[in-house]
């Protein structure tokens, strides 16, 4: 009830001469429309500013992938690798190879057109070939 009464009072106030004069004054003010030139300049400035890229690391899925791959690589590196049969690094092999070559040349000299040492072993020796070379061979020539 009071509220209706109050609304009634506001309407009355708005239609008062004072209010109508004020309203006429406001209506007579020049309209302040935004300048198109200003708007265009603003657009140009926005275009000129480089857009900030999102960091690669900021993406949680990518981060999870990279973490997973890194873990697999680290685990693989930490695993003991199988030891392949290697050759001694101290030049012994080289000496053996050179001595072996010297012996090959010598036996082929003696054999001439006939059987050389290796051909003669083909039918008479069942020894494992691993016994063919050893460090004592170094001293045979």
């Amino acid at each position, binding site marked *: 009830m009071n509220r209706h009464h109050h609304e009634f009072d506001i309407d009355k106030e708005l239609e008062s001469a004072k209010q109508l004069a004020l309203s006429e004054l406001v209506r007579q003010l020049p309209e302040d429309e935004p300048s198109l030139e200003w708007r265009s300049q603003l657009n140009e400035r926005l275009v000129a500013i480089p857009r900030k890229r999102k960091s690669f690391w900021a993406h949680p899925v990518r981060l999870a992938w990279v973490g997973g791959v890194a873990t697999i690589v680290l685990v693989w590196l930490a695993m003991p690798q199988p030891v*392949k049969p*290697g050759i001694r690094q101290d030049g012994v092999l080289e000496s053996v190879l*050179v001595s072996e*070559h010297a012996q*090959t040349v*010598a*036996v082929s000299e*003696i054999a001439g057109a006939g*059987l050389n040492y290796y051909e003669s072993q083909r039918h008479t020796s069942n020894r494992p070939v691993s016994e063919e070379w050893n460090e004592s061979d170094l001293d045979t020539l």
Partner: protein
Amino acid sequence: MRWSSLFVGAVAVGSAVTAFAQDAERDKNQLPADAPPILQRALRSSDKLRYSGVRVVRFRRGPDRTEFKEFIIKDGGRTRIEFPDDSPYAGQIIVETPSERRHYYPDSNEIRVTPPRREFAFGRLLSGPKRPGRGGIKFSIRPGERVAGRSTVLALVADDKGNTLQKIWIDESTALILKREMLDPVGAPVGHFEFTRVNYSPRIVAEDFMIRRAGAVVVTPRDLARRLCAEHKMLPIFLPESTKFQLEFSRVSKMGDVPVFVQFYRKGEVGLSLYQYAGASRSDSGRRPRDFESYSWSREGRNFSLVGKLTRSELEKLADLLR
């Protein structure tokens, strides 16, 4: 970039081939000018003599010794070798001509065709480039013992310190080498042959120098090498024929647990071994016994070594063709 690399590669290969062609002159079977006349005669007559005979051959390898007997028929540059019936090699026949050597194996019914080995080409030992720090070869001549009932002259070949490297007994009248010994650094023989019988008037027919066997498979050293590569999972890498090095034989040996694929090549009087083996890459230690040079490199997880009586730069050029 790609074109410039191709050009550089072509120039490198071209230079290598030219160098090998030039080397061919040097590799001719020649004795030093100061070699005694009897040795010069023996070398000259080796491809002219006509004879048949029985020869005993001995090899020593570490503690093991191998000895066998050969029946030889020779007519100039052609040779036929057979083995006695009680020999482990009975049935094998070898025929060598100036163009090739054919070796018949009855058990596998194969005829293995290889380059000729040029019997008695003892100039090989003395050939090769002079290397700094290496001394020369010295010769001396003295009366030799009778060999196969023939009078001989004994030629001693020694290093610059007087260590005897070879003893060669030469028939005084025909200049045939009747006996020869190659010695280790302390004077023990590592290789030896000796004629026990020789006939300078043999009856020889043209068929003596032919091997014809229907159904026999003809195999070359490359065939055998490829077979070994497949069996032992080695890389099929061979010296190109443009180098003029001819593959004589190949085999796979083991050193410890490491299989080593060995190829033995020859160009003229120069022998060359190519080794292929698995294992860690290693640097060249520079330790090279005697007067051989070596060069090593890696490819596709394998190590390779070239060893021969060549200069290091010559070996490197050959290696460039295989890398």
